[in-house]
């Protein structure tokens, strides 16, 4: 591991935030005698979100990236189906549960401490097989014509009150939602989780296919509130500043304040582990973290990089204490959702 760590430190130096001399960096890369090679990335994050960043990595290091984009769970299933024969070097997914599932099968290598330590322990695998890259907060998005922030309860459990009947939207097939329910089970226990689901079910929520349709419905006033991730609204605002919707952040360790991560792990079968490590290092560099803050509107996880000005800080949200690896127990969540009739 020693040479890898040294390499990693070298890279961190050349991608410091004030490094505006990209040509210099790529020149130094091209002067290196050995071909830095190429790596294959299975990305559960779409090209729209991370494509430019991966290109930047290639510019800076000369390491070519072959990226396969897809749904996070699909890419995880792809790796699980390929098993030992996976051509992937890096798995980059946007749900800790999916990362946990791949790690559980022993397909991810342990990352060096230098990498793991750049991120708060809440946002990485305790056994070191994956590291969080950026944060994604659960929010309650509400229609600003119908409600103001003061009308909203302090806890996610407040929405089980009958006054919310017919006003709620959710997306029970969505991975982020299911991760939230898993967190609910882990934090509050099975019974309380069932109670919450049954309470919401009793309020006859509208069911959406994903976060975007749910957001659309809130903005159109079909429903008053929906449980989604924070950045969907940010994206919508960029296209149309007059959207009649706002994000409401739960706080103080409420399960509704869950901050999940997009994270990366290196496959134990990788044949170019050094280059793979460089990529993970790069994703945690100030440059990449700033990209997440400004472009994807996610929360940077490395200290010293601030989130977008319109977002609260991670400390203000106060995400619940939970080992995000536990989010891989989706089977139990699925059964619970089916038992209460939400799926």
């Amino acid at each position: 591991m020693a040479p890898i760590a040294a390499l990693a430190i070298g890279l961190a130096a050349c991608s410091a935030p004030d490094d505006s001399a990209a040509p210099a960096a790529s020149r130094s890369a091209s002067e290196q005698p050995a071909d830095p090679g190429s790596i294959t990335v299975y990305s559960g994050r779409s090209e729209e979100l991370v494509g430019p960043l991966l290109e930047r990595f290639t510019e800076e290091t000369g390491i070519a990236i072959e990226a396969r984009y897809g749904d996070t769970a699909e890419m995880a299933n792809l790796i699980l189906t390929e098993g030992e024969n996976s051509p992937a070097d890096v798995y980059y997914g946007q749900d800790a549960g999916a990362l946990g599932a791949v790690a559980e099968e022993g397909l991810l290598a342990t990352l060096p401490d230098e990498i793991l330590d750049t991120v708060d322990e809440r946002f990485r695998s305790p056994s070191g097989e994956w590291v969080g890259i950026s944060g994604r907060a659960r929010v309650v998005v509400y229609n600003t014509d119908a409600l103001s922030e003061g009308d909203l309860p302090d806890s996610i459990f407040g929405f089980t009150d009958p006054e919310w009947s017919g006003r709620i939207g959710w997306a029970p097939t969505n991975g982020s939602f299911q991760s939230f329910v898993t967190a609910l089970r882990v934090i509050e226990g099975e019974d309380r989780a069932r109670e919450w689901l049954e309470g919401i079910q009793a309020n006859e929520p509208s069911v959406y296919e994903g976060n975007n349709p749910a957001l659309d419905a809130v903005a159109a006033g079909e429903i008053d509130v929906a449980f989604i991730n924070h950045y969907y609204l940010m994206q919508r605002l960029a296209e149309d500043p007059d959207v009649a919707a706002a994000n409401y952040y739960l706080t103080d360790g409420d399960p509704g304040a869950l901050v999940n991560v997009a994270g990366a792990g290196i496959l134990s079968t990788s044949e170019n582990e050094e280059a793979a490590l460089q990529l993970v290092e790069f994703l945690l560099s100030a440059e990449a973290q700033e990209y997440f803050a400004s472009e994807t509107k996610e929360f940077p996880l490395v200290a010293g990089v601030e989130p977008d000005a319109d977002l609260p800080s991670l400390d203000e949200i106060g995400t619940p204490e939970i080992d995000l690896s536990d989010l891989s127990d989706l089977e139990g969540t699925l059964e619970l959702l089916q038992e209460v009739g939400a799926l």
Partner: protein
Amino acid sequence: MVTLASLRAAGTRPGARTPAPPAWLVGAGVLVAMLGLLPIAYLLILAGTSEDATSLVLRDRTLGVLGRTLLLAAIVTSASVLIGVPVAWLTARSDLPGRRWWTIITLLPLVVPSYVGGYAVVAAFGPRGALQSLLEPFGVERLPDLYGLPGAALALTLFSFPYVVLSVRATLLRLDPAFEEVSRSLGRGPWRTFLTVTLPQLRPAITSGALLVALYSLADFGAVSLLQFDSFTRAIYVQYRASFDPTLAAVLALMLVACTAGVLLAESRLRGRGRYHRSGGGSSRPATPVRLGAWRWPALVFLGLVVGLAVVVPVGTIGFWLARGVSVGESFATVWGPTLNSVLASGLAAVLAVLASIPVAVLAVRHRGALAALVERATYAGFALPGIVIGLAFVFVAARYLPFVYQTLPLLLVAYLVRFVPEAVGVTRASLLQVSPRLEEVARTLGRSPARVLREVTLPIIRPGLAAGGALVFLTAMKELPTTILLAPTGFDTLAVRIWSATSEGFFARAAPPALLMVVVAAGSLWFVLRQERSR
């Protein structure tokens, strides 16, 4: 199924010779069938390792979802036939103004991916959609809820009825007008002639189109999930995506395969065993277009309504995204590469599927028997399975045993072939039924080998059918997503992947250029196919 099929074969025309098929034909047919069975074998292997399979199958919820899914398929199929047959007749046989234009435009819905079409239907007809805002001045605050069965049935019908149009149209163009003329000369009116002479001859084409619609609605994921209908495919996806344990999903997928078998059985009953070619001498010629007279107005209104719902609404939605996109600086510059990839992969898949459909259809039509029936049905398996199942089956086999083809274009094409060959088989089969075996027999007596007869006599006659089948595969392969994502060479971007990638993150403006290009390419390919028809 074997017994049933052999009984049927034994019951064909007493004294008829069913010539033994040449070995190469059987070999080719069996190969195509085996490819179709590969995903099922994969599912059986997986499901075999599952312990709670039976309890999952018998769970109330599973059975409820199954019932609802079959209901949806029945509604969509009937509605598609009711829309598709008149559209096909009007565009193939009448003197409707702008016939060719209508032909292209009524087939375009096939290229609308259901994950775009579903959005469009919600945006237009949702409780607070575009239609509601048009009606708002008249005091309409909210439209009745579209979600669930009505919305899913509407969306699926709108984007799958062209299967019926394409298959019926191909037959109508080949249909010998002599039958109708005889009927007319015997004093039957045009309506009665249509109902008693034309329609029965269309039966194989209608059932093959309807079969595709039924299977499509069993396997669709995009439209049902956007319209909040709890269908079987959705259950499979949820199981796959959420559990990281494919065994239970495999059990569900096998139940879907069982449904397909049921649908195929129903189709073979409906299809009948009739013969549909000329039996006398002479050859058929193109029919004279029927004069619509005053009927042309209701006909135009009908077509206008269909096109309005199935084409204008989705294209309008894309246009709306585009307008938003242009204002934030989206451009077409980055979509040329994916366009080329889409055309390349779908075009090759279309050629392959048409070639593969020929031995299957020839066996099924000319050499009826247990083997032929089995081969034909096996090819349909791939179409009713959700793309993710097919994709993972190929990943499973190729990553483990054939690493040198894994994530290469040829493997992707084989997966496309499995998924889409039924579309070509249906159309080829229906066209072949129109060709009298006497023609082939004459060629044989003149010393031609079976292979040469096929190449020089049969295939040229059914060329419009082959082109139609190819077009169908091309259009549907272009929007295929899960197999592409799982099996394409890494970095091989297609239009469908681009559209999905943008919409899944809510970048609708960015999805507009690839979506629009997809429609344009589709229209272009249809125009090409129609030219083939005319130059025949």
